[in-house]
């Protein structure tokens, strides 16, 4: 067992871990931060993405011991002072989630993307989210959600969604 100290969402934790303990298991099982999910065993799905020392990582492919001394941000730390992060707002406004299982990882990857590229094109968003699988949304609304957040973070008004989608259908015909 190795003693590690990790700062997660601004709070410092000291804990004993086995060498093989995966960071994702440390966060979920030892710290009780179950917002970070596990969706695969080969580092493809990205449900476990967290931000470590400013970069997004797949916490299923980092050992907890390797996070010793690191600063980690998980989905639980995204909202500050009870105010949703623009990305969270964007995912809500643009229906960027359905079952919600991929969402925490998707949010953290998008967070990393927007830190490094505040004004991404649609293609850059899609490329930037290549490490995250979503089985529900077909990514269409995730792209819109990230565009919404990017605009908000640049203090711009998010573009409205397409005219057809905005129509409130009058029922019956």
């Amino acid at each position: 067992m190795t003693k590690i100290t990790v700062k997660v969402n601004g709070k410092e934790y000291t804990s004993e871990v086995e060498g093989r303990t995966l960071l994702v298991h440390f966060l979920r099982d030892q710290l009780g931060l179950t917002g970070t999910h596990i969706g695969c065993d080969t580092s493809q799905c990205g449900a476990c993405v967290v931000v470590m020392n400013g970069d997004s990582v797949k916490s299923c492919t980092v050992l907890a011991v390797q996070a010793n001394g690191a600063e980690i941000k998980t989905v639980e730390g995204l909202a500050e002072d009870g105010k949703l992060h623009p990305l969270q707002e964007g995912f809500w406004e643009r229906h960027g989630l359905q079952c919600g299982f991929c969402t925490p990882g998707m949010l953290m990857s998008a967070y990393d993307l927007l830190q490094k590229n505040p004004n991404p094109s649609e293609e850059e968003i899609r490329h930037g989210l290549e490490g995250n699988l979503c089985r529900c949304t077909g990514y269409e609304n995730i792209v819109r959600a990230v565009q919404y957040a990017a605009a908000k973070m640049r203090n711009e008004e998010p573009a409205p969604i397409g005219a057809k989608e905005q129509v409130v259908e009058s029922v019956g015909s």
Partner: protein
Amino acid sequence: MIPSAFEYYAANSVDEALKLLAEHGDEAKILAGGHSLLPAMKLRLAAPTVLIDINPIAELRSINVGDKVTIGAMTTYASLLNSAELKAALPVIAEAVDQIGDPQVRNRGTIGGALAHADPAADLPAVILALGGTLTAQGPEGTREISIDDFFVDMLTTSLEPNELLTTITLPKMGAGEGASYVKMVQPASGYAIVGAAAWVKLNADGTVAAARVAITGAGPKPTRLEEVENALVGGASSEEAVTAASEAVSDELELLGDIHASEDYRRAMVKVYTRRAILKAIKAAS
């Protein structure tokens, strides 16, 4: 999802890593970015009893652009991608790195890890082969240089000794009249190459090919130079016709592999196509 138990050691210097390697011998595996090793361990396809983590070794994370380009083995893909200096000296590195995995893989994965692991479908090995890199390895007896041409021995096997650590990768800068490129057909699930081709060319003033190095990855058991193609190119024109003809020179003896994503036959055909595309792109960059 859960690896077998192992002893974990963090090495803070190359010397410390070498000492640990000497101590634990064959039982030990070096942990670099971990994006090949840890998934294999989670599936229990690999079960080393000792892991020596070289991530803490700061001296192995560096990009130096002088007469040559020297890159520390633990430099991450993301660092390679984001270095303006490197992009100016060797734009093909960023071109290739941007096609590797995904942002999280690029944040953790390292150039040294990609080479030392010798995954037959990794992208950078082909690029380093085409660029004619020199690798520096450090062992108990000191350092030695290994030409990239002598590095890849077989699938997942390199000429590194078990007690050696890959420390730096040295690459020539792109000179006048030179160009390089990397193109790949991507395996849609893993992001690895079904066929990846890297080319470096040097053109004469008259547009003929003065020198060329062409390498492929993904198609066979190890990343490989295509010397027949290089020989067919050199001295010839840099026209599309000439390049197409040269690309056809891929040897029928070249050992290739098939899997559920692409058969051996198809890979053989695609080696020619992607080789041609890489060379043409390299020529375009050169002119």
